[in-house]
């Protein structure tokens, strides 16, 4: 009888151990979505890369100058299909790489656009990136 009780207590303790461990693990996973944080950082960098490339190739300035978004659209076609990217510039129609809905976080990178002619033109362009 005493031996059975011991086995029961041991089983009970092991069960409690298992449940507690599971509880801590799940709580940790739910509260701190490590992969989400990393992927959010990845999205930020994608948005920044797109913004820098468009700016340094003069594509953003050309869009502001001519209101034509063809250059931006052509560049966005090389972005992997798993991402949705949208470029917004005041006074110019928004451009997206594809018709898609975002699921989850959206990262935004802003870039100043400067145009020099007889007068100075300045705009703030923003690039939004998210997972499809």
């Amino acid at each position, binding site marked *: 009888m005493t031996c059975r009780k011991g086995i029961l*207590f041991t089983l009970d*303790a092991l069960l*409690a*151990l298992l449940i*507690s*461990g599971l509880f*801590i693990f799940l*709580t*940790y996973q739910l*509260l*701190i979505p*490590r992969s989400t*944080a*990393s992927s*959010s*950082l990845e999205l*930020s*960098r994608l948005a*920044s890369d797109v913004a*820098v490339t468009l*700016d*340094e190739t003069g594509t953003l*300035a050309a869009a502001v100058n001519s209101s034509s978004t063809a250059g931006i659209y052509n560049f966005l076609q090389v972005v992997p299909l798993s991402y949705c990217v949208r470029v917004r510039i005041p006074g110019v129609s928004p451009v997206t790489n594809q018709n898609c809905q975002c699921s989850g976080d959206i990262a935004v*990178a*802003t*870039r*100043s656009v*400067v*145009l*020099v*002619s*007889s*007068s*100075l033109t*300045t705009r*703030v362009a*923003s690039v939004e990136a998210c997972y499809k």
Partner: protein
Amino acid sequence: MRGMIFTIFFSVLFLLFLSVAVFYERTATSHQTSIERVRAVDKLGFIRYDIARDIAVFFELNVSASRSTISLSNRLPSSLADAGGGLTSYKNFIEGQYANRTNANISLDISTLSVSPFLAFTNGLNYSYDSPAHSTIRLLGNANITNFTISMVIDSSASGSTLDYWDWTGSGPACSPTEFYFWTNITDSSASRLLINDTFGSADYSGCVPAAANYSYTFNFAAGSLAVSAGGVLGTPRSVSLTVSGVSAPLVLNATTNSTVPFRAYWPAALTVNNYTNPTLVIMEK
């Protein structure tokens, strides 16, 4: 007695779990904080580089470098009708609209840029302007310069030249150690390539120039002039200076050095983003 042992055992077990949970929580918080710090550093670098590039656009300057050649493409003078006012309006744009959109508190000090702008290179070169309107540019060199080449297309027709001369001391790029090779490709609006007279009455567009003496020449055009100086400029040997008056031209200036030391090029503008202050804005690193 047995009950007490169980109580102690489970209390210890509970404390163990509690400490594991606390450890996890702290690790997670630390991880999240690290991510936020990475984001903040990314953002600061992004803003700093963005503004450094904007200033280059403002001066209509493009800088690139290969292993031993620094290439500067510029336009003389500024296309802006009011370059000084444009610089102030750019500062207001960055500290206002741009700062709001980036959710940052930005302060941009352009006091040096608005008076005597320059792009400094950590290898000792200095590319400077007389003012934001930049009708004069100077590339002050150093001992490592072996070669300068300039290309310009002036928007006016040539109308003769002054009697200034260059003391070409050689006709090829193999100059003596106390000289450097200077090559020009300056054409007027009718695509005529302009030559420089030498002391012997002949004309050429390239040759060796003593490093320290100042040699200057003024090309006259129907609408204005272009003054070219090479050698010692503002007391700095192996330098070049160009000044336009009444004419404008795109310029490509290449400086070849025999130094392969890595360098950076930066503007003397101080940028403060939130509490982070950087006294220079790096535009390129090689």
